[in-house]
């Protein structure tokens, strides 16, 4: 049994060692610019990736300013799309499953915003539909994909591809989770540092 554990762990380590640093840095810059202009972040994906989007959004909103919520004047909000199960089922039932993200986004998305799309295959039809909308509105795309990246990786401005063999969902989703937490940690540290720096000045 330990052999299996060792083998999986070493695959995970290998995937982590090869995370695309420059693309993650680009994603951080895109989010930084979004913060500066007072935009919002919309995150989405299917199945486990939907879970990742929810987890990221809740962590981000709860913790990003948490140490000094009252000391920051600007706000930085993330929203999972769609934000309720009711919307999800309504779009799926009334219009079609390929519109569950693009439908609600049509109503929400403004020029100032950023989208984070999460898809292991990078080819989920509903994710691509939402990205076509983002592209049309010139909204920057942060794309987290796996395997060979699919269409998502081609369309994204920050191409966070966790390259694996096809079908390695566990590895891809696991590494995506680490990268998403890394993004939160970066902004948490950044906002803490701003307060420290202001205190010194």
């Amino acid at each position, binding site marked *: 049994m330990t052999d299996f554990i060792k083998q999986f762990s070493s695959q995970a380590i290998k995937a982590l060692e090869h995370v695309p640093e420059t693309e993650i840095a*680009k994603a951080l*810059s895109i989010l930084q*610019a979004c913060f*500066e202009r007072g935009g919002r972040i919309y995150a989405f994906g299917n199945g486990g990736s939907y879970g990742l989007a929810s987890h990221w959004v809740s962590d981000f909103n709860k913790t990003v300013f948490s140490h000094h919520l009252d000391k920051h004047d600007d706000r930085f909000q993330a929203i999972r799309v769609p934000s309720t199960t009711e919307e999800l089922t309504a779009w799926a039932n009334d219009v079609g499953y390929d519109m569950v993200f693009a439908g609600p986004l049509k109503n929400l998305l403004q020029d*100032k915003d950023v989208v984070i799309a999460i898809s292991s295959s990078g080819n989920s039809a509903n994710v691509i539909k939402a990205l076509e909308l983002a592209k049309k509105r010139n909204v920057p795309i942060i794309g987290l994909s796996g395997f060979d990246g699919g269409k998502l990786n081609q369309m994204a401005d920050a191409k966070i591809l966790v390259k694996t063999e096809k079908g390695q969902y566990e590895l891809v989703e696991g590494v995506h989770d680490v990268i998403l937490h890394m993004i939160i940690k970066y902004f948490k540290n950044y906002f803490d540092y701003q307060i420290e720096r202001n205190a010194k000045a």
Partner: protein
Amino acid sequence: MIIVRAPMRMSFVGGGTDLHAFYSKYPGRVVSTAIDKFVYMVLNRTPLVPKYSARYSISETVDKISDLKNSRIRAALEDLEVPIGIEIASFAPLPSRTGLGSSSSFSVALLKALSLYQGKQMNKREVAEAASRLEIDLLNEPIGKQDQYAAAFGGFNLIQFNPDGTVTVEPILLDYKKHADFEDHLMLFYTGITRDAASVLTEQKANSGKKFEVLKKMSDSALTFRDTLLKGNFEELGSMLHEGWQLKKTLASNVSNGVIDSLYGGGMKAGAWGGKILGAGGGGCIMFLAPINQKAKIRAAMKQAAGKGKLSGFKEIPVKFVQSGVEVMFNHD
């Protein structure tokens, strides 16, 4: 109403290599960053007021585009054949001709706003190209393309101007600590001397054949500047700025003058690692990189030199770097 903003920029190395006369023979390169001083452009449709109205440092309301005094607004409206019934207003925290690229920020914000006004979408590169075309091709200004790209893209970039006319924008990805560190070592002073980039650049353009080797050196130094910036070695960056400024002074007779030299010399003597004049030269802003504990001394020295030079508009400008490029702040047409 449509509200678009574009940042001004600070350019560190390679200014002048973005002129066609140079980059058609050898790749031009510039390292610059967007700063937290924005030109805001507001557009409003006025179907019930059949006029062209422009508000900037002055206010004008006319019946024909060709009657507008503002050359940028006039050329853009003519080129895009914008129908009558529009108000255009711009807002900026600093005067023009400070060397912070504000006139290109103006063009970039204007063209992005006009594209939305006409129901079109332009990405950053398209806006940068449209602004370059407006200023260089339509208005025949003897300027380069670095400011349009800096204003459209935002953040720190190494911008390369290729001989085939294409432009490569390579973001220099610095974390928040390096940004903050850089800001803490930086000082920016407005000399109060306004100058027209055109007068300096016209001479520089005429000289670019003779000064080819100097410009080549300046272009190559942008690569070293990028690498040193990524390492966060601000003392080294300071001396690179100093060398660059010495080179730049040789490009045209009016890049510097007595007052500028005494201001710059004063800052260096007071302990700055290095610095430069921003923009084409002849006036505008002076930037220094300096040890944090020498900043008070430099500030005092600069004030004294400015007093001697009778520079009534002299002022220190606090500055922060921003990641933002051209951005749509409001779009409810």
